């Protein structure tokens, strides 16, 4: 131990390196740490660990993390913190500390490194098992640490065992199905300014264990009486530990209030440390055992059938006088004290067990809810299992009878400032379920999640109905039941959960082989799934609008080129490939001749369009399917699902080749002329190489596959080439294209071009509720064969009128681009009583078309195909845009330009 200095609320304090900040503050005489959140009452340190409801602080050194209990912060040189009134603030600056995560599979996970946990770990090690032992304290021993004692020598050997991993400062935050535990390990805060910069601050452990031993121990609980929240009123075990172990010397006169023998043990510790113990008030009518005898021998006055009723503060707002009630005589008397140490019984930490649905069982003998669970996967040990290991004999007592005035200052949840009065009001309002009362009063919903207040709430509900005890009728905590706890057991910083997956690492980024060229060409990118695609290529000073108009014009009038490498590509091989594709697509593929391409649409079994794309037959038993950029993975999964689970007899093999084959789309009336300069070994004329045909060729000796596919309606060639050679081809094309004013275009221009032709984008012009008929694509639905979804087209609701159908939309003002997603109503539609106007559809795609010289849109409109030339309204806020419904194909309805 070495002395260090730290700051709290801008004042300097001395402390022993590694001791709890709460101990150092108390030793300096700081009783009042903060004011309560809602009532503004002075509050001090109550507990020893994560159960602390009052002393929440914000770090102002290091990470600026807030809402940390001063009871768990270990002081180190350079530490700075300030008090909070219950509500923390997030730092403005990005978090700079490192966080990481790790996975661990072990034979046995022991949670809690107290006596019970160590004993269990020793047993499992003896059986030859690998053990992971985790505990939230800075060192082993659990309660023994609070007593300033070491582990028994026999158990100390456990720490050195080669099959043991012991993690201190590691809190299990959640227990999940099949023995899965998430734990957070705090690794650097305790080192203060000497922490290595490269060390992760918190490590998140994902642990899967064959067996788990839960030995989390217990919290001591307070009692409900009037003004039970004053600084100077503490849990007895905490007070005794701060005094006896941490050398806190600020208390001169202590009063003990107890329901069990723990109060006596703590009284003795205070007594031996030199604190004048005025009296032990014990609610029971008598008590026996070593600790009681020892207290008598020490001359500590003991008074049975007495309970603290109220307290009185001095001018500083801290404890001055304790008001005690003689329960049998119903008299009160007063004692001056600067420490009131409460032993209200133990509350075993049932949280983790309840995470997986185990119900704690009330034990009147222990005055506690216990979890005695012992399967071959999970068992409980120590106090959680009822092994209190002491001569306790507690009374089931939560506080004395209080009048309404007293009840309004009798706190149940110190963080929420909720009182017995609030709880009575909730019960008075007719709430009787603990879960309802929790939500009505907010008890247990604060940062500490009811660690001290939960059991008091249950007790108070019992008291309102009379506590059942010793044959006396009434309500027992067993009747009330416990609150359900959910992970996390303690607050977990989001930064820890994010780990290193932040910023550019938050999600994988997929780029094409031409990406660097796009970057250098000044492309603006858009995210399409994980892909980065050029959105448009602005020239210096050009707006997006200007760039897109220029790119569109080049594609329609000259030559333009686009990187289409992100298209999903699935290689499909096997003797049954054609039959399989017939079942997948709505149209026929088995009859497609080799070297030809066909556009296909696939539906889910419910008849709704799911994906589309062009599939090319490369050989008798070999197809290359393309999918939408975002749909590649789900289409492959879809194909595999049917092959594996319905048609295992089909000999078909699907392989994702998206990142094997790069695709360059060369588009425009001059594209053939340009391509002839690059490809000389095949005839590119329209007679020799018709639309929707695919040819093998070579460019600079590299094998390529060229297809006459057009997603713009213009003459176009798709050059498919090995991913690694794509940049070479692209650069060659670019050099040769100079005289043609070859223009690179991005996804925005692609969208405009395809929308002008009425080509849908699945997922933009559809939302999973459109059939091919709704998209006015009945031509693609084969009547000659079966395919997935076909049966659904016979269902009455898909044949009924009123379905939303894809149409074109021309705004009356040709300069006005309607926002995508805008609702469409009938002209003159009026809001109903709720102020809502019924719509008949919505805009799915909307652009300005340089070719048309006006704005246009695609839309899904109820019975839209029957509404041609109808004028409809598109309300945008207070404004109404009038637009005319038209066919979805805006240019070249005769398909002349593609040749």
């Amino acid at each position: 131990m070495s002395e260090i200095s730290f700051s709290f609320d801008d004042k300097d304090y001395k402390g022993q390196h590694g001791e709890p900040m709460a101990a150092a503050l108390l030793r300096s005489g700081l009783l009042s740490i903060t004011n309560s959140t809602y009532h503004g009452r002075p509050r001090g340190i109550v507990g020893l660990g994560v159960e602390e409801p009052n002393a929440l602080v914000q770090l102002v050194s290091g990470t600026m993390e807030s809402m940390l209990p001063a009871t768990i912060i270990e002081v180190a040189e350079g530490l700075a913190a300030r008090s909070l009134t219950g509500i923390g603030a997030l730092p403005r600056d990005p978090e700079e500390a490192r966080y990481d995560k790790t996975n661990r599979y072990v034979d046995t996970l022991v949670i809690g490194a107290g006596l019970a946990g160590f004993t269990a770990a020793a047993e499992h090690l003896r059986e030859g098992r690998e053990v992971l032992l985790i505990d939230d304290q800075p060192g082993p021993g659990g309660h023994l640490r609070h007593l300033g004692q070491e582990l028994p020598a026999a158990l100390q050997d456990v720490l050195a065992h080669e099959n043991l991993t012991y993690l201190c400062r590691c809190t299990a935050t959640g227990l999940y199905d099949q023995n899965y535990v998430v734990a957070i390990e705090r690794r650097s805060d305790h080192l203060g300014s000497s922490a290595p910069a490269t060390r992760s601050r918190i490590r998140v452990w994902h642990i899967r264990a064959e067996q788990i031993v839960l030995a989390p121990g217990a919290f001591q609980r307070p009692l409900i009486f009037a003004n039970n929240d004053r600084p100077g009123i503490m849990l007895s075990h905490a007070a005794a530990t701060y005094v006896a172990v941490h050398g806190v010397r600020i208390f001169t006169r202590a009063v003990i209030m107890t329901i069990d023998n723990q109060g006596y043990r703590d009284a003795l510790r205070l007594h031996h440390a030199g604190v004048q113990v005025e009296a032990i008030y014990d609610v029971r009518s008598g008590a026996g055992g070593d600790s009681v005898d020892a207290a008598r021998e020490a001359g500590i006055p003991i008074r049975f059938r007495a309970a603290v009723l109220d307290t009185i503060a001095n001018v500083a707002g801290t404890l001055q006088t304790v008001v005690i009630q003689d329960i049998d005589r119903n008299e009160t008397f007063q004692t001056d004290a600067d420490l009131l140490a409460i032993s209200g019984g133990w509350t075993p930490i049932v949280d983790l067990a309840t995470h997986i649905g185990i119900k704690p069982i009330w034990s009147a003998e222990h005055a506690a809810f216990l979890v005695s669970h012992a399967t071959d996967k999970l068992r409980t040990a120590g106090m959680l299992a009822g092994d209190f290991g002491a001569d306790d004999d507690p009374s089931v007592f939560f506080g004395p009878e209080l009048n309404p005035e007293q009840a309004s200052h009798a706190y149940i949840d110190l963080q929420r400032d909720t009182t017995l009065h609030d709880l009575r009001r909730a019960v008075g309002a007719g709430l009787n379920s603990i879960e309802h009362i929790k939500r009505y009063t907010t008890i247990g919903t604060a940062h500490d999640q009811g660690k001290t207040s939960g059991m008091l709430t249950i007790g108070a509900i019992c008291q309102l109905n009379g506590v059942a005890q010793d044959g006396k009728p009434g309500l027992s905590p067993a009747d009330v039941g416990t609150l359900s706890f959910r992970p996390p057991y303690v607050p977990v910083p989001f930064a820890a959960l994010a780990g290193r997956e932040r910023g550019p690492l938050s999600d994988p980024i997929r780029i094409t082989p031409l990406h660097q060229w796009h970057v250098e060409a000044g492309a603006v990118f858009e995210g399409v799934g994980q892909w980065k695609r050029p959105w448009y290529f602005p020239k210096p000073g050009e707006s997006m609008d200007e760039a897109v108009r220029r790119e569109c014009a080049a594609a329609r009038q000259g030559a333009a080129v686009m990187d289409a490498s992100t298209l999903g590509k699935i290689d499909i091989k096997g003797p049954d490939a054609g039959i399989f594709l017939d079942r997948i697509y709505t149209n026929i593929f088995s009859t497609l001749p080799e070297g030809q391409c066909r556009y296909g649409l696939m539906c889910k079994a419910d008849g709704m369009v799911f994906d589309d794309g062009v599939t090319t037959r490369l050989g008798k038993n070999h197809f290359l399917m393309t999918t939408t950029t975002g749909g590649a993975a789900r289409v492959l999964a879809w194909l595999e699902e049917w092959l594996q689970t319905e048609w295992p007899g089909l000999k078909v093999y699907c392989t994702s080749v998206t990142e094997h084959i790069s695709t360059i789309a060369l588009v425009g009336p001059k594209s053939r002329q340009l391509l002839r300069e690059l490809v000389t070994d095949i005839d590119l004329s329209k007679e020799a190489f018709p639309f929707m045909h695919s040819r093998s060729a070579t460019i600079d000796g590299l094998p390529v596959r060229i297809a006459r596919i057009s997603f713009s309606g213009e003459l176009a060639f798709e050059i498919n080439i090995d991913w690694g050679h794509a940049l070479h081809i692209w650069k060659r094309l670019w050099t040769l294209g100079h005289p043609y004013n070859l223009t690179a275009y991005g996804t925005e221009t692609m969208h405009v071009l395809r929308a002008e032709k009425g080509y849908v984008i699945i997922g933009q012009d559809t939302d999973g509720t459109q059939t091919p008929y709704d998209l006015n694509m009945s031509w693609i639905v084969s009547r000659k064969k079966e395919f997935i979804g076909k049966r659904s087209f016979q269902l009455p609701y898909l044949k009924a009128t009123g379905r939303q159908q894809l149409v074109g939309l021309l705004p009356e003002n040709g300069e006005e681009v309607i926002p995508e997603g805008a609702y469409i109503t009938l002209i003159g539609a009026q809001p109903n009583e709720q102020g809502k106007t019924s719509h008949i559809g919505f805009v799915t795609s909307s652009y300005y078309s340089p070719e048309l010289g006006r704005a246009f849109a695609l839309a899904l409109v109820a019975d839209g195909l029957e509404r041609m030339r109808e004028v409809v309204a598109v309300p945008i806020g207070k404004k109404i845009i009038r637009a005319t419904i038209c066919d979805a194909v805006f240019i070249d309805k005769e398909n002349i330009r593609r040749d």
Partner: protein
Amino acid sequence: MLYIPCPHCGPRNETEFHYGAEAGVAYSDTNALTDTEWAKYLHIRANPKGWLAERWVHFAGCGRWFNLWRNTITHEIGPAYLPFTTQPKSPGIIGKEGSNL
């Protein structure tokens, strides 16, 4: 986080799998079905409290579909089996002591 025994790869975390709902709902000759029967195929699943044979795919692993008994209340995992093989018996009806978490 369930721990799911992939028949090909062994037990793996749930995040490696995709769920495929109730197993054994066969896709048959769709034209032989009435509208009601077809709608039932599309939309109606058993969804019991207790043991259910489910389809799962080891999406981030071997990519294979398989079936698995799982208890929808306790999340206990029962035996896994391959499609088109004999279904193992249900691990049982969930009782008060049936939980083996």
